[in-house]
């Protein structure tokens, strides 16, 4: 029996989004108002993130009694207990799919309870049933900032707020370290990072900064818009991924801060820099230039990586994102950068598309890594949904100049390099001996089956001679040769593949 994954989401739920914000902040306690299973978000934190203390979550469970008698009493009791025992600055009462289905009026509960708690009670203005992770983050971050931001005088030196880095984001904490280092090198102060590590007190001082910098395009811009409208704060929303975007990012900051950043950019891109040496080496020229890649991920990473690949001479066959709400700006942004630009949130379609395209390398989410493994293509993971290996212990940013070198290392470690390609050509097949034996056995078995039920399947037979020749072909192109030969044979109406058919197919494709 084969189990088929019928439904799977690239983006998390609204609850994941809210929890990423609250979990990233200090002295914020999250009360999840839902049934037992809705506290799964704690598990994600404990499995993936590498901190000493888990963010404080408490489940106010909706059980049988609450369904029958209303869940208000339970929620009131939970909030009062959390307030007394944990003494947080803020208690966020999160709606869940269940509380939304029950149409529970959490605002009303918070309103009546506020007089009895020391903590500020906040109910995210998010529809837990309908909204998705990034939209919820965008809305809720704005709500938090709007609740606490106060008019303050500007800091003496030019300072910025970094908006974006949060727990469970894709390499975001590493990105933050890289951006911090960059700004430090430029002599720019950081006033506040939101939400990572921010407290209520810090949010009150958010307006001390001269500029807001939103690092990711999926969320954070609403916060900037709010602060601009309410407090007249200037902002900048660029994801510094790749050579050009990082340069643009630095130049714009330099312009706003009145600092000349060109020396810094030159230092990082000079002929002696790591990036230049990597991109201009003979090996890179022969192994990267003209290779065919496909890109899929969230908005920021799919866009940024596409730029970067173009910059190092890799051809992008197609670039896609699952951020359906951002379809038009995605297409506009990448127009002309890839042969095809699209939006899709069906992982099966992406998997099939990879198989059809037969790229040299895939850049995708953990789901594309699985799909690529199945079709035997090398894959670099560049976006959430992520796995434990995307929460590495060593410094591994995606953004900024260090991000570029890290991605280049990653590509070199994944793609078949020039010399390696030749070596595998000469000596490669032995290590795959076992695999070939299995393949032969499978073909033999299916041939037998076919004889029993003639004409039931469309699979094409390989003669033992032909199979032996197939086995001689290096493993990393074997699949491709097999598929091409079978397609050719079908087109020409051959019932089985003999040595002659192989050679004819070879001649045909070499033309």
């Amino acid at each position, binding site marked *: 029996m084969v189990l088929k994954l019928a439904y799977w989401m690239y983006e998390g739920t609204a609850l994941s989004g809210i929890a990423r914000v609250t979990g990233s902040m200090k002295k914020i306690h999250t009360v999840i108002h839902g049934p037992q299973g809705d506290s799964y978000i704690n598990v994600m934190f404990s499995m993936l993130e590498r901190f000493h203390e888990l963010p404080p979550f408490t489940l106010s469970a909706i059980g049988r009694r609450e369904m029958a008698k209303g869940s208000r009493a339970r929620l009131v009791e939970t909030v009062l207990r959390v307030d007394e025992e944990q003494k947080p600055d803020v208690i966020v009462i999160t709606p869940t799919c269940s509380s*939304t*289905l*029950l*149409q*529970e*009026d959490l*605002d*009303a*509960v918070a*309103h*009546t309870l506020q007089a009895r708690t020391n903590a500020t009670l906040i109910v995210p203005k998010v*529809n837990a*049933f*309908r909204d998705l992770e990034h939209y919820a983050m965008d809305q809720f971050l704005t709500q938090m900032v709007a609740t606490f931001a106060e008019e303050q005088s500007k800091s003496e030196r030019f300072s910025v707020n970094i908006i974006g880095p949060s727990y469970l984001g894709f390499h975001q904490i590493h990105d933050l370290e890289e951006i911090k280092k960059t700004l430090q090198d430029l002599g720019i102060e950081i006033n506040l990072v939101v939400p990572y590590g921010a407290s209520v007190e810090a949010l009150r001082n958010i307006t001390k900064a001269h500029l807001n910098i939103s690092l990711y395009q999926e969320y954070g811009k609403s916060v900037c818009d709010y602060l601009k409208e309410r407090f007249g704060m200037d902002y900048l929303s660029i994801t510094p991924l790749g050579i050009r975007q990082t340069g643009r990012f630095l130049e714009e900051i330099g312009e706003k801060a009145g600092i000349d950043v060109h020396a810094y950019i030159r230092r990082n891109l000079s002929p002696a820099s790591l990036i230049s040496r990597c991109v201009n080496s003979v090996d890179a020229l022969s192994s990267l230039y003209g290779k065919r890649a496909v890109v899929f991920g969230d908005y920021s990473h799919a866009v940024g990586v596409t730029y970067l690949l173009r910059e190092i001479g890799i051809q992008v066959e197609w670039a896609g994102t699952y951020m359906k*709400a951002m379809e038009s700006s995605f297409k506009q942004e990448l127009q002309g950068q890839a042969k095809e630009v699209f939006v899709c949130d069906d992982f099966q379609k992406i998997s099939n598309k990879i198989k059809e395209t037969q790229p040299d390398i895939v850049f995708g989410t953990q789901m594309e890594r699985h799909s690529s493994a199945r079709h035997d293509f090398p894959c670099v993971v560049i976006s959430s949904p992520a796995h434990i290996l995307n929460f590495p212990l060593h410094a591994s940013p995606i953004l900024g100049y260090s991000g570029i070198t890290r991605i280049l290392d990653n590509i070199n470690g994944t793609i078949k390099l020039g010399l390696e390609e030749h070596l595998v050509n000469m000596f490669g097949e032995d290590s795959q001996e076992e695999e070939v034996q299995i393949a032969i056995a499978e073909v033999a078995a299916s041939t037998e089956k076919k004889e029993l039920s003639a004409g039931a399947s469309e699979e094409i037979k390989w003669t033992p001679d032909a199979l032996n020749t197939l086995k001689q072909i290096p493993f990393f192109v074997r699949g491709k040769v097999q598929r091409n030969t079978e397609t050719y044979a079908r087109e020409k109406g051959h019932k089985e593949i003999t040595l002659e058919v192989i050679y004819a197919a070879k001649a045909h494709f070499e033309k």
Partner: protein
Amino acid sequence: MIIANYGKGGVGKSTTTSNLAVAMARLGKKVLQIGCDPKSDSTFTIAGRMIPTVVEILDKHNYHYESIEPEDLVFPGYAGVHVVETGGPPAGSGCGGYVVGETVKLLENLNLLKNYDVIFFDVLGDVVCGGFAAPLQYADLACVVSSNDFDALFAANRICDSVVEKNMSGYKVKLAGLIGNRCDQKDLLQTFCEQTGAPLIGVVPRAEDVRQSRVKGYTLFELEEMGEPVQELTAEFLKMAKYLLNDPPGVIPNVIGTREMFEIFRGEDTGHGRNSA
């Protein structure tokens, strides 16, 4: 001004709401009537047909909320009154309360509640769950439609309770009062209003014309235009419309205890009481 109309099932909420909506339009107001009932027949008399519901329109857009414009959901009807039907799941399945509650919030998100002088919510029956209470979160005033009998007043009392509850939770909604419908007499209504402190906004007598108009898909005002002798009825609706447009302060009612309800009305309800003698 946002007004939410509640009342026991079958008491004539939709008919009353539609006539009030048209009366206000006649008085020069821009009016929107939102039917909050999975049966989606609230606005039949104004539109003259069953209009597509929000649920149906969402379905057509594959539930892409962001691609929906307010104009997609609103239909013009008689006397320039605009109408919306929330819709809901088929009878006997799904959760009507969820759909109504969510749809009301969607209409608010779409800024639809901002462009009118008066908005009526015509809500299914009693406040039976969180979903059907959602209109109270946006309303300035609540009206209860009731006939002159115990069962309708019993439901009215529960609705009063919801208004009190919403006020305790920080919402501004006040009870504008009761509207008597299908009343040959009004003694029980008056008793109830005295006890709860709710004003009696108006009383519409039991009349075959009213029932007929509903089935035919006309408001009384349209019937009047067609030459039917319903001036007395339309006059009553115009009177009530003026009262409501005058921005009455409304009350937070004194809710009557369930046991007390039985004691007060014991034997008084000649229509239903066993010991009416």
